[in-house]
């Protein structure tokens, strides 16, 4: 009876792995990114065109000149915003795909038919697949919620870095490009 139940669970895991895998493959926004970059390229071209027209114009019109300058400033602002949006979206999508990858890998491992009966895919095995501290924090949160006074399970969260998450640490604390070690 237990063997049948275990086989069913593995079947469910295999199906779920396929479904999450399909979902992950649909997380493709390259067409949207392509449009974004085409738009920024077009804006860049328009900005250059406005400058060229102004340079080659024989008529001096202060109102048109002011409007040209305003338009160029506005174009630059929109370009910056679009660049930022595209970069953030790319990173967000990358992160979502990595989490989906982790779920698929875990489910595939749990679905392996050759896994000896009675063996399990543990939460520690799952933690080994994580690619970000956010996943580890979530993992620890679930552990403490589901297992508040039970068996002691080690948290998987790594030591916090000394710097803020978005801060860059380079030459000052790491190896300098010229080979001098400034640690």
């Amino acid at each position, binding site marked *: 009876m237990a063997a049948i139940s275990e086989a069913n669970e593995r079947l469910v895991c295999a199906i779920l792995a396929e479904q999450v895998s399909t979902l992950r493959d649909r997380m493709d926004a390259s067409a949207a990114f392509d449009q974004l970059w085409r738009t920024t390229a077009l804006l860049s071209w328009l900005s250059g065109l406005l400058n060229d027209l102004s340079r080659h114009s024989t008529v001096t019109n202060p109102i048109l000149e002011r409007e040209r300058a305003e338009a160029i400033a506005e174009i630059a602002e929109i370009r910056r915003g679009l660049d930022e949006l595209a970069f*953030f979206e790319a990173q967000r999508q990358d992160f979502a795909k990595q989490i989906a990858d982790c779920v698929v890998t875990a489910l595939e491992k749990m679905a392996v038919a050759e896994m000896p009966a009675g063996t399990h895919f543990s939460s520690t095995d799952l933690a080994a697949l994580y690619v970000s501290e956010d996943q580890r924090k979530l993992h620890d949160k679930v552990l403490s919620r589901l297992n508040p006074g039970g068996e002691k399970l080690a948290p998987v969260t*790594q030591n916090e870095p000394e710097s803020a998450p978005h801060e860059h640490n380079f030459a000052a604390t790491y190896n300098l490009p010229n080979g001098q070690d400034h640690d």
Partner: protein
Amino acid sequence: MPMILVLDDSATMVMSLTHILKGAGYDVETGMNGREGITKITDGAKPSVILTDLNMPELDGIGFIKEARKLATTRFTPIIVLTTESGGRKRDEARAAGASGWLTKPAEPNQLLAVVKQLCPAK
């Protein structure tokens, strides 16, 4: 024009980084994993700065950094890790392998460019 080598297994990340860096006046070479990065270097690419993800198939970021540090061309080239990982252990691992710096995703374009420009001003 200084060249930046970008390594990431996410096509959209590669496209986005390329767009930002080219817009700032850099040449960009790309690879989808560490192995492709090493091949580019051994084929003659001389990057001024390398931006690499950590979690990549075939050869991951740490493996790439270790191999790149053995090559004469990239022995002292600044290598910036751009990754979702923010854990201290991973950071120490990258540092021990020879990484020059670290940026955690999500990073802002200006933040990224500030780091790259500091290491290698665009001409």
